[in-house]
């Protein structure tokens, strides 16, 4: 069922910009249209591009926002996971809780 909903209606998570739009919904309570327009504005792309895995793979790579990793798409030396979340926080102007925790615990 998770797969069904992901294919039928989901934005695509980090394959696209689903995680970024989700962060604006979670942290700012933005409705979908507002959240998509905000993220598209920050990325400098169109709203439709946000759920286009082709367009977003390029953009996420260029901006270091983390991408799906598999045997044919490996990006050593490129930000992912916590590294990418530092960049996402800066891009979206958000205080991401885990990033702040990382700074505290790492003594940064």
């Amino acid at each position, binding site marked *: 069922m998770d797969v069904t909903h992901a294919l*039928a209606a989901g934005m695509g*998570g980090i394959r696209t910009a689903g995680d970024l739009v989700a962060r604006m919904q979670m942290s700012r309570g933005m*409705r979908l249209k507002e959240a998509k327009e905000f993220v598209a504005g920050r990325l400098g792309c169109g709203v439709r591009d946000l759920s286009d895995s082709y367009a977003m793979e390029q953009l996420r790579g260029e901006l270091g926002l983390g991408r799906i990793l598999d045997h044919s798409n490996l990006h050593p030396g490129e930000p992912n996971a916590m590294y990418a979340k530092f960049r996402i926080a800066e891009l979206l102007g958000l205080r991401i809780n885990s990033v702040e925790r990382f700074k505290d615990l790492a003594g940064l």
Partner: protein
Amino acid sequence: MEPKIPTRMGDGFMVEMTRSELRADIEAATAEAARKAKCPPLTAGELDHLLDIYASPASFTAVDIGDQVVLSCDGGGSKMTGTDLQDLLESEQRLGQDILELWHIEYSYKAIKTILPFQQQLMQNAQLMLTAPIQYGAQPNLAFYSKPDGPADNWFELLPQGRIAEAKAAIDEAMEHATKDFVYVSDGMMEAGADGMDFDTTGGAGDADLFSTLRAVKHVRERWPEAGIEVGMAGEFVIGVHGELEWEGRRLAGMWPKDQLEVAQDAGATLFGPAVNIRTSKSCAWNAAFSLTVMKPCMDVARIPVHPNVGQGVCGVPVNGYPGEDASSRAAKACVEILRCDGL
């Protein structure tokens, strides 16, 4: 002779119906929903659109390109991939989920309280490994605070005996314990780096279940201003087990989704998940029409994203463990295209 179209009942059983029969189901459902929830029925255009979604033999359907919505996946993953961390990685890297959720199989705040450090460590580790937001989720389950599972007298035994005052006192006692647990777990998970909290299946034990959750939501919003807070409901109608509980002057008992949304957003939630329970003896088309009708009033008053629950047995998805992708995808498409919801 009108052709038959394969479609499903609310329990998942596949049947065949004509387009006319499906239309009749949809029209009957929206009329019944409007009468019960005292809201407008779906418009003629919406009914036509819903009929087009359901009167199709396609094995799968989907929203249009660009219309995709955010998926908040309460209780996502399988718990059978080895570890919670692997489960979350798979959900992010393979399923493309937008909001991930760390959860424990004892999906209740009362139980989680006893293993909080274990869940905190998992959250901290997961946050290092994943990019997508991770919330922590569990259910309020107020009934667990009554005897024999909890400390308060059992109001479900007292009420049928007519011992109303004692039952209400027991509910009040249970709510105090419950809110403390919700706050304790929420603070603990946010301190471990969670992106937000999910109060899943809220109202399952009635108005007191919802009230004790709203108090916790208010606390989390005040202490963690940027936390995601999802309030997902247990059903379309808040049962008045206590009967007199109010949130900022609004009686909780008897609330339908629009009113549920309003108290949730006023308390500080940033995501609201309405749920409409399936009628197993009705077709999925009937269930979708009923669900959309009672949820639609939310969309005009929402200041926060609305993510209808489309898990097993709610909002048009059959109640069986493996709902057919034909039925699940139709429910998702109907919610997105007719409600114009913000997520699922």
